[in-house]
């Protein structure tokens, strides 16, 4: 897992819950990295998972809900760090449908060894999009949060339905309908 | 059997003798006209008063080529109806084709042996004497 996901996550935890909670969830986890993260490094995904689980236990908020909030935060990171990535799009559907073909390509330029989920476009119209998310990480709510923010970024809203194709969440169908 | 008036166009005196002798040998009553000289023969034809029923024409003649002679005949509105049979020793395919192209009624090769010659002439004349022919002199009578 890319370091930036972890550093931004801990940053958000610190902002929302304080340094104390950061310290607590790190201490509670068994981390090979000992909680020392840099955005350019690469770490085990299990570290992210442990941090998430301990934060969920501490705050009594579900992991999915935490991921959703985190994704919204992460979108603002993208917005401020890589404005060029967003500037070329005029429409949220266009942008989301080109995750595979464009955004992930750009990501690989910066993080060549990043392990990225796949988003397969099943159906696309001007105002709707059906995609299949596939990732062993089962971080579909992270994706959902990013999508929500995307619509917000373009001053619109959408109904996004999630349907788990696989119980463990490694394969999920996203049905997106833009509100008119 | 009809009696034919035959014009033999032949320069060679012995050939003419051969033909005449053949006719008398076969005891045929055909009338043989011709001057033994191509130029006179042409004049005779040009008068159109005493036209033959058939013409027998040799191809290789010193004064006028038989094919030229044939062309003159076939370009004439009266003479073109007279059946003209080539009687020659030349079996040159080119000559044969040229003759048929202009229009002939037959092409007979003169054999070496006199007996064969007699037999060929007999058959030839027998054939023409049973044929219906245009009366070429009729025109003169109607006027």
């Amino acid at each position, binding site marked *: 897992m890319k370091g930036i996901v972890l550093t931004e996550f801990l940053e958000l935890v610190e902002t929302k819950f304080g340094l104390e909670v950061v310290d607590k969830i790190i201490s509670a986890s068994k981390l090979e990295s000992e909680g020392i993260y840099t955005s350019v490094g690469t770490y085990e995904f299990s570290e992210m998972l442990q941090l998430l689980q301990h934060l969920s236990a501490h705050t009594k908020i579900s992991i999915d809900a935490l991921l959703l909030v985190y994704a919204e935060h992460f979108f603002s990171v993208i917005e401020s760090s890589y404005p060029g990535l967003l500037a070329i799009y005029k429409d949220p559907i266009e942008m989301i449908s080109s995750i595979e073909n464009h955004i992930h390509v750009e990501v690989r330029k910066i993080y060549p060894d990043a392990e990225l989920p796949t988003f397969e476009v099943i159906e696309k119209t001007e105002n709707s999009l059906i995609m299949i998310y596939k990732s062993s990480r089962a971080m579909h709510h992270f994706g959902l949060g990013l999508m929500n923010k995307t619509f917000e970024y373009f001053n619109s809203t959408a109904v996004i339905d999630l349907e788990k194709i696989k119980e463990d969440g490694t394969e999920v169908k996203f049905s997106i309908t833009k509100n008119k | 059997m009809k009696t034919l008036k035959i014009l033999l166009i032949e320069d060679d005196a012995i050939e003419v003798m051969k033909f005449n002798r053949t006719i008398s040998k076969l005891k045929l009553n055909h009338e043989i006209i011709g001057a033994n000289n191509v130029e006179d023969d042409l004049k005779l034809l040009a008068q159109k008063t005493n036209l033959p029923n058939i013409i027998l024409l040799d191809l290789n003649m010193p004064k006028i080529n038989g094919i030229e002679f044939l062309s003159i005949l076939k370009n004439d509105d009266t003479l073109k109806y007279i059946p003209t049979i080539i009687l020659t*020793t030349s079996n040159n395919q080119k000559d044969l084709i040229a003759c048929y192209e202009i229009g002939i009624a037959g092409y007979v090769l003169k054999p070496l042996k006199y007996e064969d010659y007699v037999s060929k002439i007999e058959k030839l004349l027998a054939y023409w004497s049973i044929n219906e022919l245009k009366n070429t002199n009729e025109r003169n009578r109607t006027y």
Partner: protein
Amino acid sequence: MNQQLEGILLRALKREKGARKAAEKILEGKSTEFYDLTQKLKKSNFKLEKLIAEKSSELRGVFENIVDAYVVMDLRGNVIKMNEPATSLLGYDNNQENINLFTLVDVSEVEKVKKSYSKLINNGSITNFQVKINTKSNDQKLVHINASIIYDENHKAIAAQGIVRDITEIKNLELQKEKLLLKLGKSNDELQEYAHIVSHDLKSPLSSIYALVSWLKEDNIGKFDKNSLQNFGHIESTLEKMELLISDVLLYSSVSLDESKKLNVDLNIVIEDLKKIIFIPSHIKINVKNKLPVVFGERTKFQQLFQNLIGNAIKFNNKKNGLIEIDVSEKKSFYQFSIKDNGVGIEKKYHDKIFKIFHSLNDHKDSTGIGLSIVKKIIDLYNGNIWIESDYGKGTTFHFTLKK
């Protein structure tokens, strides 16, 4: 509580330091990686440059050493580059003067060249283009051009290159050859015509003599003695032989190839047809031992060939049970045929002579000695050979080949 906070802060600080060091280490690793990559790139660049230099020098070598004229021009036909042979062919040098394709070609050819040049640009190449050009010294030359377009790295056409060959001489020779062939054909036709006329002129007196002899006999029945009558018979058979001779000479002189009549000929059918034409006495058998091939040529020539050989085999057979065997074997570039008989045979000393014209070994009534000459002439026309094997008194085998 303070102590607790202090612990948290210390741990956070420790993490921050650790993270910084880790980041520095990663970046260090990255720069080493970059350095290595740069070195590698430099190396491969160097190799590429060397390769380009080699290729360029090779090309220059080709350009300078090529025997044919080589010209490079831009898309408007301006000459950019030309080699030594091009300079000596055209008389112009692009280093000293501006040369354009359209002023180089003859005025009458400009339209044709315009069309071909745009075809070259559109299709990328033209071959076998022939055009009249005027050299600097105002010589008109006919040249043959193969040209292609040079593209830049974006596949955009930038120039045209062409190999120019002077074919003025070749073309002249070709024209001369054509003229000669035409002349030859004409004189062949004339000869043919001449042969026919001569043959007619010779035959006519023969038939006259024949008629005169017949009349002498007819008009004097009972007046000649037996001896005189026999002599009349001799005159007649001599006349017949002479006539046959004239016919055969005419036949021999007309054996020449007519390319337009060439087609695939099944020799099996030729032989079957011949068996119907030739008179085969009942005591003579003809066997074809193997299936004969299909050969390309004039049917009548093959027929003449087999007719003469089979005819001879029949004519010169003196055995009670005559046997003629026809066989063939296939070789790499030709077929080898054999016609074997059990006839009189030919003495060794005559083996070469029999193919010469008028050379008949026998005083046979209907043999003039031209048949085998015709056979030889036909085989010569088809680039073949003929030879014989013979056991005098026992039989003869004619072998001959026909090119495939």
